[in-house]
């Protein structure tokens, strides 16, 4: 049961990671096949588990008080492109080129 090209393309878009080649796609197919074993288990009436600590109520909200900060200089040190106290990104609101224009591996599918 193969994954459709539309879904593959959607995944590349969501993940912003590409399959690179047929091996990449094959890897996904194997992963899905592997995961399908889950359906052998009867989970009727079983609640999903988010955290093993669910009984301890340890996830809490703290008071909205500032406890640390003022580390702009340190944080900017690791960015490659910056202007004053801004991180600089290339222009936004430009969607990734369509499949046909992208020259991605999926074009051949």
């Amino acid at each position, binding site marked *: 049961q193969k994954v459709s090209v539309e879904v593959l393309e*959607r*995944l590349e878009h969501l993940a912003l990671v590409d*399959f690179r080649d047929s091996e990449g796609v094959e890897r996904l197919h194997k992963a899905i096949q592997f995961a399908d074993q889950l359906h052998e*288990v009867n989970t009727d009436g079983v609640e*999903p588990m988010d955290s093993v600590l669910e009984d301890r109520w340890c996830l809490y909200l703290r008071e909205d008080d500032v406890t640390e900060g003022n580390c702009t200089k340190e944080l900017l040190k690791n*960015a490659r492109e910056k202007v004053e106290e801004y991180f600089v990104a*290339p222009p936004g609101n430009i969607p990734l080129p369509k499949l046909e224009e992208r020259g991605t591996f999926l074009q051949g599918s």
Partner: protein
Amino acid sequence: LALKDGLHSQVSAALKEGRVAPTELCQRCLALIKSTKFLNAYITVAEETALRQAEESEERYKRGQPLGILDGIPIAVKDNFNTAGIETTCASNMLKGYISPYNATVVQKLLDQGAVLLGKTNLDEFAMGSGSTDGVFGPVRNPWSYSKQYKEKSAPKSHSENKESNWVITGGSSGGSAAAVSSFTCFAALGSDTGGSTRNPAAHCGVVGLKPTYGLISRHGLIPLVNSMDVPGILTRCVDDAAVLLGSLAGHDPKDSTTIQDDFRPFELPNLTDVSKLSIGIPKEYHAPGLSSEILSLWSKAADLFKKAGAKVVEVSLPHTRYSIVCYHVLCTAEVASNMARFDGLEYGHRSDMKESTESMYAATRREGFNDVVRGRILSGNYFLLKQNYEKYFVKAQKVRRLIANDFVKVFSSGIDILLTPTTLSDAAPYTEFIQEDNRTRSAQDDILTQAANMAGLPAINVPTALSERGLPVGLQFIGRSFQEKQLLTVAKWFEKQVKFPMIQLEEVKRHDNGVFQHQKSASFS
């Protein structure tokens, strides 16, 4: 004092009594790291800062004011923990050159107690893998590959096939940390454990590997893989030392809301002599397909050991064990898809030269920065999280997770104190053999015995048990109840005493210890 000596039993006392100085200890470790460079256990050696830390420690000892048992003790940290001012790479191109602006809480705690940070250890890229073979800095070599014990058991090879070709892996993903401890370059190391990444290499390298209860030790600063399963791991040469490290690291951290708020009190491990009140569970499902007959026999001998000593040894069942790997596969890839989204080249890490648009820059950065394993997991994870798949895969896996956790609850509430299982399916494979299969297949095979403890959040420990027929370490695993580390470690310590696992005989280390302390009679080493 020899580098092989136990922290708890010998080194701390030696430092306090002035028999050895912190700077000397540090220098010896640094020298040994240099001469064991071929192991590729370290990505970064922080020589200058380590020596400075050692000097500061020495001052404190001179004033008679050491910070505690860890003051002056050289340790190593897996390269997925943030360390201020020191490069943190996660063995990935994505973070090459990234200098952390802060210390992970566990790192800060160690430094606050005077520990000397020697360097950052090698791992599988972003901790994804079970061999420590898939990082950008190359694979880590198991120190036992160069041991007298392994060489003696290797069939005599022709002159052309030297030791270069049949070295064995460390296991993973905390292979660098395990190798560093195993080769005596440090007294303890931090690893991480999401599916077995501390216990697996501990078993293959013949060291103690502790996975604490989820929620006991802070994950703040540990670059996350699976937020609901990750824990910092502790690697040491003996159980007592693991207890020391645990004592200095455990406890609530306001910066990590998944740490429990209960008070944690560090403990000394009692010397258990009477195990008659103990009830040991042997989960039958851990007799997994592919388990070597050698390890099966060792496991059986261990059960007998407890029985003969008066403990109650009972076969138990954890019926959903065989689904834990599948469940992990879905939950892990899903969380990875989310956690890896932060790597976009803007604020830190690698950034592609692509300038056309934000999205194309992100895509190119991630293509350039991540290896195939990481990218594969991100794509799989995104697949399982698609709206049409969410219930079918992600929520389904969460339900199966509850079943797995409940299996343990049932067993522990039926009077069982500790579970005894193998840690790995076999001893360490030669590198050339290991890389025949892909990362996902290997991880699925190798994590089978360790993964369920992460699923349920339980504490577990690998204790080196014996040498295999090939002269390589084999360990056994104890799994305990939530937050009952004291009981777990007490039993582990008793077992460790019974099995008397042999010390690794490494030429390099012998040379170092003998060279520096000619006048001192070193304890039987070889």
